[in-house]
């Protein structure tokens, strides 16, 4: 959050002194995004004080997932590339954070700047992996791309077991994270601090993504998605655009994975299975392909639905074994059915339905006035 605030003052100037209309519009878009981010940040701080620690932790998890779903939204929704491998990219980020934090802890280094450094390293390593996969992906289409990324999603977590000397196998690694700074007070709840951390990082990422989508790059992403040949004829370098989209998407997924690792203070291959990759895709589809707001819905759903099924199974009186089976699998079944139903009935997703509703209301309002 501090980062977003720091970024605010200088950007005001171009809006005020904008000479050409183009500049002013651009400035106002940026301003709008900044205002929105600031409002979200304030809201988040307010909420972090209002709700109990467990909810804080859940919201922090939503924020971490949001990074990944937003990245996937950019890739699949805006650029038309389907990735089933974002779970693996999250794993890359998560393991990098684990390595960095462990290295810092082993050397006895402390300080508030270490965690951002680790997160930066996580993003960097995912960018590298994303660039490699992205270069391959740019040459592939439709089902081929889906197949390759599916293979990535299945194979990469298995690597943790293959090279268990480095990754410590199924057990995984622990991620040492420092307590909240002393300046916040002795009794500052740890979960609130987690939410602040995750929220700040995610809001910054969302701000950057929102601006990217509105920029020239966002337009080329969409152009390539809609018609590659037309985009090429319009002078867009298709392959480069696709790699860029993949890298951006990978970076946010890496950040999301890193945040998850920081929140859980551990990382293991089981957390980044194929199921997670499918979950992310489902979240993006249900939220509404191609809309950042849809990614928010998807991330919320990822956390809320298992929680909800947990409470439902608790209400039913079941034998422990049955309850355990149900609890583990009911969310999956619901996700699966929702994915199919949404794809068939409402390809726009939740956000699509909402915007349609909103447009319908707006259309009615001026009609009434006149």
């Amino acid at each position, binding site marked *: 959050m501090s980062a977003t605030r720091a970024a605010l003052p200088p950007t005001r100037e171009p809006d005020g002194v904008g000479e050409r209309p183009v500049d002013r519009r651009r400035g106002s878009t940026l301003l709008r995004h900044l205002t929105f981010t600031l409002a979200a940040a304030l809201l988040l701080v307010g909420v972090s004080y209002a709700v109990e620690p467990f909810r804080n932790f859940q919201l922090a998890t939503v924020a971490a997932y949001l990074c990944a779903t937003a990245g996937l939204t950019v890739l699949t929704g805006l650029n038309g590339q389907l990735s089933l491998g974002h779970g693996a990219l999250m794993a890359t980020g998560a393991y990098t954070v684990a390595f960095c934090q462990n290295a810092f802890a082993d050397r006895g280094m402390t300080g508030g700047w270490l965690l951002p450094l680790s997160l930066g390293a996580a993003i960097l390593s995912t960018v590298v992996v994303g660039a490699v996969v992205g270069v391959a992906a740019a040459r592939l289409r439709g089902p081929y791309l889906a197949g390759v990324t599916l293979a990535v999603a299945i194979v990469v977590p*298995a690597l943790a077991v293959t090279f268990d000397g480095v990754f410590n196998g199924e057990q995984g690694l622990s991620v040492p994270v420092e307590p909240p700074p002393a300046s916040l007070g002795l009794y500052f709840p740890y979960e609130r601090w987690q939410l602040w951390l995750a929220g700040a990082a995610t809001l910054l990422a969302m701000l950057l993504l929102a601006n990217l989508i509105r920029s020239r790059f966002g337009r080329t992403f969409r152009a390539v998605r809609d018609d590659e040949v037309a985009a090429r004829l319009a002078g867009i370098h298709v392959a480069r655009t696709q790699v860029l989209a993949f890298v951006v998407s990978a970076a946010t997924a890496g950040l999301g994975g890193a945040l998850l690792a920081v929140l859980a203070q551990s990382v293991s291959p089981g957390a980044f299975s194929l199921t997670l990759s499918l979950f992310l895709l489902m979240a993006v589809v249900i939220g509404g392909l191609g809309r950042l707001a849809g990614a928010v819905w998807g991330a919320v759903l990822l956390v809320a639905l298992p929680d909800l099924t947990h409470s439902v199974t608790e209400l039913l009186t079941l034998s422990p074994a049955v309850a355990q089976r149900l609890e583990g699998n009911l969310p*999956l*079944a619901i996700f699966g059915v929702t994915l199919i139903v949404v794809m068939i009935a409402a390809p726009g997703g939740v956000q699509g339905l909402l915007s349609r509703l909103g447009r319908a209301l707006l259309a009615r309002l001026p009609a009434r006035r006149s």
Partner: protein
Amino acid sequence: MDRFVFLTIDGLSRGAVYAAFALALVLIWRAARVVNFAQGAMAVAAAYVAYTVSAETGSYWLGFVVAIVAGLLLGALVDRAVMRFVDHTSPLNPVIVALGLVLLIQAVLGMVYGSEFRPAEAPFSRSALSVGGVAVLSPYDLFVFAAIGVVVSGLAWMFARTPVGLRMRAAAFAPEVSRLLGVNVGGMLTLGWALASGVGALAAMLVIPTELGLHPHAMDLVFVSAFTAAVVGGLDSPPGAVVGGLVVGLLLSYVSGYAGSDLTPLAVLVLLLAVLLVRPGGLFAPVAARRV
């Protein structure tokens, strides 16, 4: 050398299964232009049905037959109840729906049967018979070769020689013209899904006893290997799928025999990427183009 012979036979036996599974993928791809990412989950579901039947009746063979019938029905059901309603204008849509099916089927299996590995029995001994002191073939390997040989040649005969095979090919290549010629294109599509899913169920029945056992995710890696096999052969070519399956099976067997079984998933990924980057149309693409 003995080890090499053993690994080769083992690889061909595995490869035969991949070939069948890849063939099932190719069948649906040719008929509907959909890569059925749910095929692994569907095949596991059929195998679970067989497991239940075998456990109830004590007969492996009854379970075996039921698995294939269940596979056929499940394929038809998926086409009629789900895929038919999917908007196919974007290739992403059917893929996403298939993934939804994966989640759903695996979750239902997990709810009904739990997530622990269940031992799957093999109907024949899996210890290799030795010929001249060299361990060569197990009776189970022979069974795998025979079963898959029968299915593959049966399918080949059906497509090449029978009226229904001709209809299915026509419906896949030119749906609109085929309708004008009196072909029930929707029915052929359902038949294609059913056949593919039946073949997938057979492959699952054959491969699961050689692995850790029955589990909702038992076919995940097999699917990736079979997809790789289909891509190696070129997604459009049934003979390519068979050859691709054998190639992948051999490769995995050598990798696991000489370098360690942990490395096989990585080997699949490397092969898939290598083929797609070097020859995106599959290794047999130019040959096939000349033949067609």
